[in-house]
C-alpha cells in the first residue's frame, strides 16, 4: 500500500512539475507548483518527517507562493508567448536536460547507498523534539546567522521596492 502511495505521489509530483514549466498562463504555473508542494509534503509524511511536511506546506505553499501570486497579479502578466525563432535552442536544451537526467538516474540511482540498519534506527528523528534538540545544540550558530540573513533580506527587499521619484506604480 505504501509502495502504491509512493508511486502515485511520485507520478503526481513529476506531472505537476512538468506542467509548471510548460504552462502558458503564469497563474496556472503557480497553481501547479502548489500542487507539487502538496505531493512533496505527502512524501515527507511517508518518510516520517512530519514537522518538515507541515512546515513545507505553511512556508512554501502558504507564504512563498502567495507572494508569487501577488506579484503576478500586480504586474498583470499576460500569457507567455513562444517565439518560433528559438526552436533550435529549445530542442537543444531539452536534449541536454534529458541527457543530464538520464546520467543522474542511471549513475546515482543505480549506486550502492548504505542505509542505517535496524538496530541503530531512531524513528523519532522526524519529531519536533528531536529536531529542536539538534537545531539548537549542533546547529545553533547557523540558526543565528540565518536570522541575520532574514534581516538583511527584509531590509533589502524594502529598499529595493521603494518607489523612486516620478515613477508610476506598476
Amino acid at each position, binding site marked *: 500500500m505504501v509502495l502504491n502511495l509512493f508511486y502515485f505521489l511520485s507520478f503526481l509530483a513529476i506531472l505537476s512539475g512538468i506542467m509548471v514549466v510548460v504552462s502558458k498562463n503564469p497563474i496556472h504555473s503557480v497553481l501547479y507548483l502548489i500542487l507539487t508542494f502538496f505531493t512533496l509534503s505527502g512524501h515527507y509524511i511517508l*518518510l516520517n518527517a512530519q514537522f518538515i511536511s507541515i512546515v513545507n506546506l505553511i512556508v*512554501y505553499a502558504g507564504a512563498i507562493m502567495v507572494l508569487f501570486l501577488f506579484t503576478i497579479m500586480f504586474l498583470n502578466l499576460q500569457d*507567455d508567448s513562444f517565439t518560433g525563432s528559438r526552436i533550435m535552442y529549445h530542442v537543444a536544451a531539452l536534449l541536454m*536536460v534529458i541527457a*543530464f*537526467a538520464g546520467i543522474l538516474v542511471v549513475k546515482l*540511482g543505480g549506486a550502492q547507498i548504505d*542505509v542505517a540498519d535496524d538496530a541503530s534506527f531512531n524513528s523519532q528523528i*522526524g519529531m519536533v523534539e528531536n529536531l529542536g534538540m539538534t537545531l539548537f545544540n549542533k*546547529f545553533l550558530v547557523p540558526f543565528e546567522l540565518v536570522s541575520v540573513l532574514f534581516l538583511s533580506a527584509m531590509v533589502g527587499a524594502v529598499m529595493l521596492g521603494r518607489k523612486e521619484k516620478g515613477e508610476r506604480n506598476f
Partner: protein
Amino acid sequence: MNQIPEIFRVVPVNHFVILASILFSIGILGVLTRRNAIIIFMSIELMLNSVNLLFVAFSTYKSDPAGQVFVFFIMAIAAAEVAVGLAIIVMIYRRIRSTDVSILNNLKG
C-alpha cells in the same frame, strides 16, 4: 516507540534519488527555456524542493536529523531569496514594463 516506518522496508532509497533527479532536471528545463522571469523563479523553487526531498529521504534512511535541520535552512534561505528576487523583478518591471528576460541584453559583447 521505535517503529521503523514502512517505507524504509518497501522503497529503496535509490527511488528517492531518481525522483529527486527527475524533479531537478525539470526545474533546470524551466530555467533554460522560459522567458518570463517569474516562471524562472518558480523553476528554481522546484529545484530547491527536489533537493529538500533528497535531504529528508537520506535523513530518514540514515537515521540522522541533520538532514532535516538542513532542510530548515534551505527553506529559510529560499524564502529570503524569493523576497529579494521578487523585489528586483518588480524594479525591472518598473523600468522596462515587461518581465521578459530576453529584453535585458545590456551585457551583450
